[in-house]
């Protein structure tokens, strides 16, 4: 009997085991889709904020042998605000990178929570965009969507999306403020007032916008009415009753995408406003420039806000936007 050389056999056995474990399973051609089918993606990133849209793309197809697409429908768990619609056009991108629409149906009809498009052309496959304008009643709640498509054969495909959290915070964009006129900013009303209007809304005035060239570091400021008047409100005569001691924390490089409407992929959400530490915050922020921002807490602690400086001029005007969070509502 011949002796087996174990030293040689061992590597061979090992190699065999390795090869066996790498064996590929044979590829199988997947079954063709034989019924009406659909798919959906959510295109909007960042927090879902009341008054802003949430955008989806809903794709649907039916085999030619089964007929054509009849109608597509979206049902939201909370009816969308005015402006909610399902596109009746399908888009393709041309060689110049431009989205070109192709009309495939009649404009959508919204009835309550349902938005429907009826196809008017003979089509088997299409992708439609859906814009849901978040209604104010959805703030702090969750919203879900049911997308469905029905073919001419009467069969339906359905896809559920969500639930998605809707932020509690509110947004107000592009508020004009100016050094000599609209200089009283109200977080409660999310607007800027002139002196006369500020006097009648004195309790709601949280910040004073001012622009000073001396000292040179002052420039644009957002200052609480209760701040040291000689240092931070030079030349300002506050309307009667305007005296809130608002807390302000200056921020740099926080260009929230919804406020800035710029290329930055930064989003401020409820949790950010909840977590800002105002315990040692001052009541003024000066030396502000475009794309700066301030965290604000009102004197009564009812509201917290992030005020973003969209643009400034050297003539003492600025455009600001804000996200406001109400701390008193659950």
């Amino acid at each position, binding site marked *: 009997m011949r002796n087996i050389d174990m030293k040689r056999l061992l590597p061979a056995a090992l190699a065999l085991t390795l090869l066996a474990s790498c064996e590929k399973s044979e590829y199988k051609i997947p079954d063709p889709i034989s019924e009406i089918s659909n798919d959906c993606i959510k295109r909007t990133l960042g927090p879902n904020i009341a008054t802003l849209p949430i955008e989806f793309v809903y794709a649907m197809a039916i085999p030619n042998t089964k007929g054509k697409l009849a109608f597509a429908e979206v049902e939201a768990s909370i009816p969308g605000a005015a402006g909610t619609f399902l596109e009746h056009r399908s888009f393709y991108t041309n060689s110049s990178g431009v989205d070109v629409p192709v009309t495939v149906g009649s404009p959508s009809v919204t009835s309550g929570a349902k938005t429907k498009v009826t196809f008017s052309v003979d089509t088997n496959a299409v992708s439609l965009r859906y814009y849901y304008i978040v209604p104010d009643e959805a703030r702090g709640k969750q919203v879900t969507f049911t997308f469905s498509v029905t073919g001419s054969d009467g069969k339906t495909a359905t896809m559920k999306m969500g639930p998605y959290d809707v932020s509690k915070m509110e947004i107000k964009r592009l508020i004009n403020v100016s050094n000599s006129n609209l200089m009283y900013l109200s977080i409660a009303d999310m607007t800027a007032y002139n002196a006369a209007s500020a006097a009648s809304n004195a309790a709601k005035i949280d910040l004073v916008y001012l622009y000073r060239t001396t000292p040179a*570091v002052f420039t644009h400021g957002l200052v609480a009415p209760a701040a040291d008047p000689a240092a931070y409100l030079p030349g300002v005569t506050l309307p009667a009753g305007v005296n809130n001691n608002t807390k302000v*924390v*200056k921020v*740099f490089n926080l260009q929230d995408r919804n406020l800035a409407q710029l290329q930055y992929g930064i989003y401020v959400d409820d949790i950010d406003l909840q977590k800002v530490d105002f315990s040692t915050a*001052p009541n003024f922020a000066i*030396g502000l420039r475009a794309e700066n921002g301030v965290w604000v807490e009102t004197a009564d602690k009812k509201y917290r806000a992030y005020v973003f400086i969209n643009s400034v001029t050297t003539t003492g005007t600025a455009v600001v936007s804000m996200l406001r969070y109400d701390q008193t509502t659950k």
Partner: protein
Amino acid sequence: MKKTAYRMALLVFLPAAAMLSACQKGLPVDEDGLLITTRKECFVSNFELLGNDFVSVRNGVPIIDTVAQTINVTVNFGTDLKNLYPQFTLATDCKLDPKITGKVDFSDLANPKTWTVVSGDRQIRKAYKVFVKVQ
């Protein structure tokens, strides 16, 4: 045959021995796990103050007196003195005591903050006072 085996052993064991010796412990470290060296230098070479927005609030360069062990820094008008981040640049191997772990309140201008610089050999300690003046 024997020669080859000997060579093989050398090839395997020599690098292993070299690696083991490189891992040898014995150099002293302090309570923070930092290497205690032989350096005696003990001074602050630069100082910076950042605001809550992490932007410098200094107005001009800081005046560092390594003999008097003082740092005089002027900050911009309107600086929020309660929320500042100081940054020290120290001589090689030095460390700072107490450590800076976050925002520091400089609003009490009459009582300057003090930090102690500890030399690389941990034998020399020099206390620096930071005087802040608002523009």
